[in-house]
């Protein structure tokens, strides 16, 4: 599982924006780095679920998107930075799950 996670290349911001508009049904066709997900793009709770699940899939390895990372996301750039963080944070193999 760890190897599978490490094999994935981390997207660039431009790649991430292309992924964003392609993978998220609620996204408009174009987004800017500083587009506010709620105020500009209309993300609601259901959209946030799509985003969380999408980022988890993009990172791979059945890794959980932590609450504290999700709470730091306001803009598309924030979402990218937290995607990068999730891709690089070490796994908690000592954790309860």
């Amino acid at each position: 599982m760890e190897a599978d996670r490490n094999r994935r290349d981390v997207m660039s911001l431009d790649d991430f924006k292309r992924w964003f508009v392609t993978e998220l049904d609620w996204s408009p066709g174009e987004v800017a780095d500083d587009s506010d997900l709620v105020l500009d793009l209309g993300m609601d709770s259901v959209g946030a679920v799509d985003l969380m699940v999408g980022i988890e899939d993009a990172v791979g390895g059945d890794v959980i998107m932590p609450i504290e990372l999700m709470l730091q996301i306001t803009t598309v750039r924030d979402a990218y930075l937290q995607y990068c963080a999730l891709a690089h944070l070490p796994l908690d193999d000592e954790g309860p799950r």
Partner: protein
Amino acid sequence: MTADGAAGDQRAVAAAPNPGLSPSLETRRLHLRVLQNDDHGALYRLSADPDVTFQWRFRGTTPSFDDFLKQLYPGVLCQFVVSPLDSREVFGLVVAYNADFRHRFCHAAVVMHPRLHRRGFGIEAFMGLARYIYYGWDFRMIIMETVGIAYENFASGERAGYFTVEGRIRDQFYYGGRYWDGLAVTHRREQFETVVQGPVGRLLTPGRRVLRTHEDRLI
């Protein structure tokens, strides 16, 4: 395999519970835990939060702490404090109430800290409650009564098939200088069984955790 064995297998399949259902109170990121006395203060503060109070039961009024406690339990079938998996921090409350065992439905409500709104955690908490309810009771549907201003936080779920808006009272509630519709929303058992096959199902499954990136409270 013998004919008897095959028949036995078929009986086992027929008797097996729906794999989407579980009495587990843990979701991917959250823990629904039994309400305890030391949660009351945090819930009282949450009930008075300006971004919560008008959409929760007290509708902007400020009951005493004793009156708040008296109204926490009547009519409740089950209710749980919503916390992150690794702490007892109070994120919110999920409640199933006014159960009708003859007609097989109950009502439900979810209240979450405003910082968590539009982040998907209310849906994760609700789906944890729905899984528990549909596992433990033969209910056909869960009914939620909501206000247009709160509905906007999860409105796209109707298009995605998460729930159905069944009733609308136009301009029922007054908040923020305008009237908002009152909505009756149902989440039926078959909708639960369908949506857990999609992205929402991920919310109910465990996964691999990364090392904690915080030391203190999240909200």
